[in-house]
Every structure is written in C-alpha cells, then in structure tokens.
C-alpha cells in the first residue's frame, strides 16, 4: 500500500516530470494563462510548461489559484 505522505514527499523532492518553465516566465505568462482558463480555453496548449511549474513550485501555484479566483470573482463565475 502506498503512503500518501511518502508520495507527497517524493513529489516535492523530485519535482514535476514534465518540462516546466521557471518562476520568472511563470510570472510573465500568468495573466494570459488565467484569462484563457477563465474563458474556458486551452491555457495549457497556449502556454506550455506552466501547469508543470505549478506542480513544482508552491508559491507560484498559490498565486495562480488566487489570480484565477479573483478573475472569476470579477466575472461573477463560481471559483
């Protein structure tokens, strides 16, 4: 049986397997990515490497979640 805590720790130690951008590119592209997501478009196809970066970087992941929630609040969509 696999232990979720061990899996989580392995994930943090080894990071995402898929190619990822760094934090600087993530910040540059985050607004475009979020607007595409909020519009229901394929943000991952338009901005490859961001999704994997969110997996590997908790800080950028939190900021992505917040920006998406804020934009959705602006547009009246459920977060």
């Amino acid at each position, binding site marked *: 049986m696999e*232990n979720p805590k*061990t899996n989580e720790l392995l994930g943090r130690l*080894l990071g995402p397997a898929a190619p990822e951008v760094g*934090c600087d590119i993530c910040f540059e592209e985050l*607004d475009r990515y*979020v607007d595409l997501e909020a519009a229901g478009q394929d943000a991952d196809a338009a901005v490859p490497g961001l999704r994997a970066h969110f997996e*590997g970087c908790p800080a950028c992941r939190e900021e992505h979640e917040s*920006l998406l929630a804020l934009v959705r609040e602006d547009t009246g969509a459920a977060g």
Partner: protein
Amino acid sequence: MSPTAATVSGALRASPVATGSSVLDPESQELLRALKSSGRAYDDACARLHALLLRAARFEVARRRRGLTGFEADTLATEAADDALLAVLRRLDDFRGLSKFTTWAYKFALYEAAVKVRKHAWRDRELPLETDLLGSLHAGSPGPEEDVEMHERLGQIAEGMNDVLTPHQRRVLVALAVNGVPIDVLAERLSTTRGALYKTLHDARAKLRAHLEETS
C-alpha cells in the same frame, strides 16, 4: 512609510504603452490611456489603479492570513498595494495586451501580498537549512503498511542528495522540499531571488532523478 497612491502618482510618470489596443477590452484601453496622460487624468487613473491593487492585495491576504491580526492584515495589504502600484507603473511598457489589463495588474498585487504574508509568518523563525534527511523521511512516512519499494526509493534519494548534489543544492532542496520553507523567505535570507532559487531546486531535482535512473 510606504508611498500612497498620491505620492506615487506625483513621483512616477508612465511612458507611452504599445499594447496592440485593438485586442484590449474597453476598460483596459481607457485605464491605459489615462495612465499615459498627465495632470488630473493621470492622478485619477493612479488612484483607480491603486484601488484595484488594494482589492487584490486584500483578497490575497484574506486567503493566506493564518495568525494575522486585523491590523497586521490591513497593513500588509496596503503595503502590498503600494509596492504593486510602483511595479505596475514601472513596467507599464511590458504589458502586451495578451490579457485584460486588470488581470495583468492584479498579479503584481497578489505577488506582493503573498510574499509579505509568507515573510511575516517566518519573520522570527530560524530557517531549518540542514536536517537528518533519513530521519525526516522516516518521520514523514512509513508505517507497517508502507510500500517497501517506495521506501527504498526514498533511501536512494537520501543517498543521491549526499552523493550528487552540491552543498548549496542540498541546502536549498532540504529547506524547500523537506522542511517547507517558503521560497521567498529562503530567497531573502540567502540574498537571492525566487527565480534563481527555483533554478537551483530544478537542477537538484534533475540530478536526483538521473541518480535514481542510474541506481535503479
């Protein structure tokens, strides 16, 4: 003391913006036009922008405010909005018109607020940069039902951390991935940036994955 919208608007003037305005929504176009103007229109636009940024900063602080008093939360949000206003005005030429202007501006406020909340939470704490890795791995995981293969993998990782990582890579990986130090807090203590630290983390992870492939 942090600058207010009024003092910032007096000190900074945004240079003209080339945004491809045809793709911009009317609200973004209007705000950008005003931020390129001067006098009263510019001051009004800065005040509007600051209000947007303050809303975003409060939104972020409210999501992450673990343990903050109301006063601390309000202070951090206001400081974040002030810093974000400076950053947005300084980088206005970088706006490419590929998103709504508000979305682009919000990200600066969210970033400033998130960083301030993380630093505030760790302001009086020693950073755990070294650790008994195997002890942490053991404490964090196994029970009698633990997958043996998974546990062996953790042992290989611990071995790889000692054998293939540089001392700096090991210190960064332990702090961020094992001890949960926020990357912005570690960046400040090591006098570097989030981007540079993440590059170190990325390289360390790549070395560990290669080590696992070689030893498996």
